[in-house]
């Protein structure tokens, strides 16, 4: 039986989400910005979805912007908040962490390399958790933005935002949170934390691909990145993709409704998976065991190459990730593993669980990893 354990890469579309989307793909074809009945029908669906997302996150609907996905949401927040703050003369210093998703890191690096911002990149501890004091210690009087993810996409570590956010709010520094991996898996409180921005991606919680959310506080200034017709408060121009937005709203509502039962169920499966893998000699958990998504098991496998492990598991019908995939599909050394000084001589695997994951999937994956590791270690590990 094949087992899909790559839900951090993407999740299957929930059948109820598909049902919610279908009428809007078939019938409600109006442009949500049009001033007639066709447009109003589509707009009504978009606004319902906006309310669903707002309720799922405990924010007001006007704070919810729809984008094309997590990368765009992160880009708008990082580039837009930093540029607007500098234009207002508030400074040109940005702080982030070394384990952010590339959508945040690359935007921060572009601010530094092309626009003259100062950038401080704070390293996490060896457990993959950022020390709040180190992050706050990097903040200066001219700091205009701190970007810190809620949970890491590769090693699943949950960052201490409840400690970081209030301190930043007290100092009046904008905080952007990439919550793409965290939503539906760990509690998020953007209002209570007072974040300026927070990014979600629908396909990480059983919604469709190509749609995301940027929660943006009403009182922060943002320079738009994409220019045009002024949709979404003028911050994200472009015709709204009503069917996908409907799917995003439905998926957000489902994720929050399912969380009370799903989170403990997945955490138990995660622990069983971790135990099943770590009984092998030389297989160790990467990143904090306590501060971890209920859906993530990241392991280092001594004596095995990561690309080879991935291929061996694929041949056994088990889908996992090794490092991060680049455009051509090659497995590259990951900046996250580098930041926590992971053993470069070991293969690193990420197994990630989701709503469709069963105990059978976990058992299949454990057996497959045991057999792949034995095969590879018996033949030099598959290193280049």
């Amino acid at each position, binding site marked *: 039986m094949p087992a899909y354990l790559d839900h951090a890469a993407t999740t299957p579309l929930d059948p109820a989400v598909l049902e919610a989307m279908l009428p809007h793909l078939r019938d409600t074809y109006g442009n949500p910005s049009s001033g007639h009945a066709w447009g109003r029908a589509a707009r009504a669906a978009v606004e319902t979805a906006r309310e669903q997302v707002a309720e799922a996150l405990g924010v007001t609907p006007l704070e919810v912007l729809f984008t094309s996905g997590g990368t765009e949401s992160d880009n708008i927040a990082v580039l837009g908040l930093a540029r607007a703050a500098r234009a207002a003369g508030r400074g040109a210093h940005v702080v982030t962490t070394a384990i952010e998703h590339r959508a945040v890191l690359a935007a921060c690096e572009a601010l530094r390399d092309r626009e003259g911002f100062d950038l401080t990149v704070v390293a996490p501890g060896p457990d993959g958790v950022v020390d709040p004091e180190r992050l706050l210690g990097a903040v200066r009087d001219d700091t205009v933005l701190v970007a810190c993810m809620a949970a890491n996409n590769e090693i699943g570590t949950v960052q201490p935002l409840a400690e970081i956010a209030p301190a930043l709010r007290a100092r009046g520094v904008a905080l952007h949170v990439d919550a793409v991996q965290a939503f539906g898996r760990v509690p998020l409180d953007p209002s209570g934390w007072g974040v300026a921005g927070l990014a979600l991606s629908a396909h990480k919680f059983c919604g469709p691909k190509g749609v995301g959310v940027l929660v943006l506080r009403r009182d922060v200034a943002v320079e738009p990145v994409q220019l045009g017709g002024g949709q979404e408060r003028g911050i994200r121009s472009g015709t709204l993709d009503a069917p996908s937005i409907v799917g995003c709203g439905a998926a957000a509502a489902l994720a929050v409704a399912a969380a009370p039962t799903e989170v403990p169920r997945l955490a138990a499966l995660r622990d069983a998976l971790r135990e099943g893998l770590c009984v092998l000699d030389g297989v160790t958990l990467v990143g904090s065991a306590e501060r971890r998504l209920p859906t993530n098991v990241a392991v280092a496998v001594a004596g095995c190459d990561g690309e080879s492990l991935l291929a061996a598991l694929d041949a056994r019908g088990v889908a996992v990730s090794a490092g991060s995939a680049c455009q051509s599909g090659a497995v590259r050394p990951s900046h996250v593993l580098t930041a926590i000084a992971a053993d470069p001589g070991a293969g690193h695997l990420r197994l990630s669980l989701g709503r469709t994951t069963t105990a059978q999937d976990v058992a299949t994956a454990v057996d497959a990893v045991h057999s792949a590791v034995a*095969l590879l270690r018996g033949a030099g590990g598959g290193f280049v």
Partner: protein
Amino acid sequence: MARVLVAMSGGVDSSMAAALLVEQGHDVAGVHLKMADTPSGLPGKGCCTLDDSRDARRVADLLGIPFYVWDFSAAFQERVVDDFVAEYAAGRTPNPCIRCNERVKYTALLARARALGHDALATGHHVRRDRGLDGRWRLRRAADPGKDQTYVLYMATQAQLAASLWPVGDHRKADLRAMAAERGLVTARKPDSTDICFLPAGDLGAFLRPRLGDRPGRIVDADGTVAGRHDGAYRFTVGQRRGLGLSGGDVPRYVTRIDGPDVHVGPRTALATRAVEADHLTWIAGTPPAAAEVTAQVRYRGAALPAVIDDADGERLRVSFPAEAPEGVAPGQAIVLYDGDTCLGGATIR
């Protein structure tokens, strides 16, 4: 049926290698090796580009086989590209395809294929293998003499031959293109790759100049006079006529020898080489051939000329050419020995 891993460059030969293996009933998986870091946003050219990996992927999709892209760029840089630059710096003319086969494809890749439980590694090389009467594997010239690649595989060992498949070696290139078109492979009409994969537009000078810089020296004529100056001997190879920048003179002059910073030139007659010394000698059979009369090829697309093995002592080889003498024998290139269409082995010209 065997489990076969096929290295898919994105060209027509390796595409057809994969297709033929699938049709023969093997359990096939494809892999594209990422050999270089192509910077994002820049136009790429060569064997390692996104275009080529996409073509390979689309062929694998059509054939319905698993497909992977493996990042071998660090090993390729260290074992092939760095060596290539160092060889030019030392006044030699390296063959990076031989190094890649020797140090990457038939070592690291083959080892990984075996580690993953594949019985064999296949490539799109135009060569053939069979077994001789003594049961040992032999490497044979391809059915298409114009495409034969035994020259870049002379270092193959018995163990490597036993684990290798070269399905296109039995076919002529034109037929392979037609077969690829019949099967709807996107690579059917791709032009042949003739350049070194990591040289953009085949421009050796543009590649070496930033890496080796200015290394000025003299151009010395056959009579010992200084005929000119140059700013890097690495830009020259033995046998080269163009680009010397020599004016006047009644006969065309060729590079005959590179000695430190000095580039020696002479008339074409000075290029003929009666005897060649070489090292790092390997024999495909594992032992030297019984007969000393062989043919020898001193460059990739050169002719195999009648030759006599004067001495084959361990890793050292000395060969003489009793009939026609080869011209422009460049140190760093391989001398590859044949018995008819059987490749016997070879060595690196000193």
